[in-house]
């Protein structure tokens, strides 16, 4: 479980996040949604420590992420896996080396165990016989799946996904969404997904937080989102033509 208390962040004079608080639960995908520029990615970066918040605290299963020294922060980070928007694969390494990277640097596992684990993770994300391919030789959807395999190879307790469906076709998006949901449930990990894709929201949105101008405006699940009564959320949800046509019916 990840608990966030009163996170605020400004860049120069512009306030990006103001007093965000929330609890992200274990064993299911927690979605952070909102229009572009509402502070979703900044919030995610504050949660993982890539951007330091001006105020507030983040607790990982009760451990204060910003309260301790750097060693404590690194200890928590070694339990994290993250899927970046563009995949963030190391382009000098092939698929196998990319997925094996956390095991090489962070563990003393023998090679036979590492390769077994890598192949297991690649199979888990539906990729086989691509070990020797370079990131430039695979499609966007495959990159995302390799990114997920790399994120889960070291059996993380916390999985973060920054817009996992951006730039993907609806079918591949669905595959990625299902994968994230399955992994969250099977591995019983805390997963946070930043997205503005309504298909994802309606597909895996078991817990959803809606951000508007740096503040949490609404919290609920996919069954409640269409009748929240919050104008800003309705504007966001029904901007999607499919959702809008369903609403009119």
């Amino acid at each position: 479980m990840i608990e966030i208390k009163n996170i605020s962040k400004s860049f120069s004079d512009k306030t990006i996040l103001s007093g965000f608080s929330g609890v992200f639960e274990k064993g299911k995908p927690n979605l952070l949604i909102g229009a572009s520029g509402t502070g979703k990615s900044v919030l995610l970066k504050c949660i993982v420590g890539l951007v330091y918040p001006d105020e507030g605290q983040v607790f990982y299963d009760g451990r204060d992420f910003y309260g301790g020294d750097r060693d404590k922060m690194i200890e928590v980070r070694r339990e994290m896996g993250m899927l970046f928007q563009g995949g963030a694969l190391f382009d000098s390494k092939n698929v196998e080396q990319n997925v094996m990277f956390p095991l090489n640097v962070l563990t003393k596992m023998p090679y036979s165990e590492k390769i077994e684990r890598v192949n297991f993770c690649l199979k888990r994300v539906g990729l086989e016989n691509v070990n020797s391919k370079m990131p430039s030789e695979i499609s966007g959807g495959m990159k995302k799946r390799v990114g997920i395999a790399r994120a889960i190879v070291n059996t993380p307790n916390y999985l973060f996904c920054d817009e996992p469906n951006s730039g993907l076709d609806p079918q591949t998006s669905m595959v990625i969404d299902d994968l994230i949901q399955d992994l969250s449930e099977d591995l019983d990990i805390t997963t946070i997904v930043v997205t503005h894709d309504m298909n994802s929201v309606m597909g895996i949105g078991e817990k959803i937080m809606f951000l508007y101008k740096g503040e949490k405006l609404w919290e609920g699940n996919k069954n409640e989102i269409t009748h929240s009564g919050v104008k800003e959320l309705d504007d966001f949800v029904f901007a999607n033509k499919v959702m809008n046509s369903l609403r009119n019916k």
Partner: protein
Amino acid sequence: MIKEIGKYFIFLGQLLVNRESFKTYYKLTIDECVGIGIGSLFLVALVSTFMGAVTTVQTAYNMVSDFIPKYVIAQVVREMIVLELAPTIIAVIFAGKVGSSMASGLGTMRITEQIDALEVMGINSISYLVLPKVVAALLMYPLLVIIAGICGMMGGYLAGTLTGIITPNDYVYGLRSSYNPFTVEFALIKSFVFAFLVSSISSYKGYNTQGGALEVGISSTQAVTSSVIAVLIADYLLAQLLLAK
């Protein structure tokens, strides 16, 4: 400016904290050594050979008095190559080739979130990415300077003897006469300092890239400019400190 220098020193401080295992760095450093050393060998040899050749021809052109023996040409070539041309001019070329490559490589990693990926894994990205580059530069650049010195003197020999400016015997005699070993020590001291400056400044510029592809190009250019300025300032300071009487 002061703020930037402060940030650079904080960056250097991060090189040595929260390091990974020695084995991790060993392989990375060897890879960097191949890129920096072998990759620069041809250019360094080519440039230094021509520098030596040109220095010989120009020195001969400027020696108008018949009372000055010909072997002095070789002495001048030796001193110029060892003291200045091999360590400093090659440092400028090193900044252009290796420094810009370091900055653009790290800049690309930054804008494609590869550095963020390392950080999220709990890896000190500065130490992991930059330390091997700095160590490899410190190992390889002095060797490149030695090779540049040898090639420079060989270039001078070829230009001098093939055009009849100086006889082979005079050239070799000139290289050996009044030789002061400290000049070689001084060149090696300079090469270590320049290697550190070029690799660390270029890495700093690349690591702190913000934006997109355009900014990677800007970082790369800034890396070369800043490295060259730092090399020239260090060159003067070292000469003042170690050679001034």
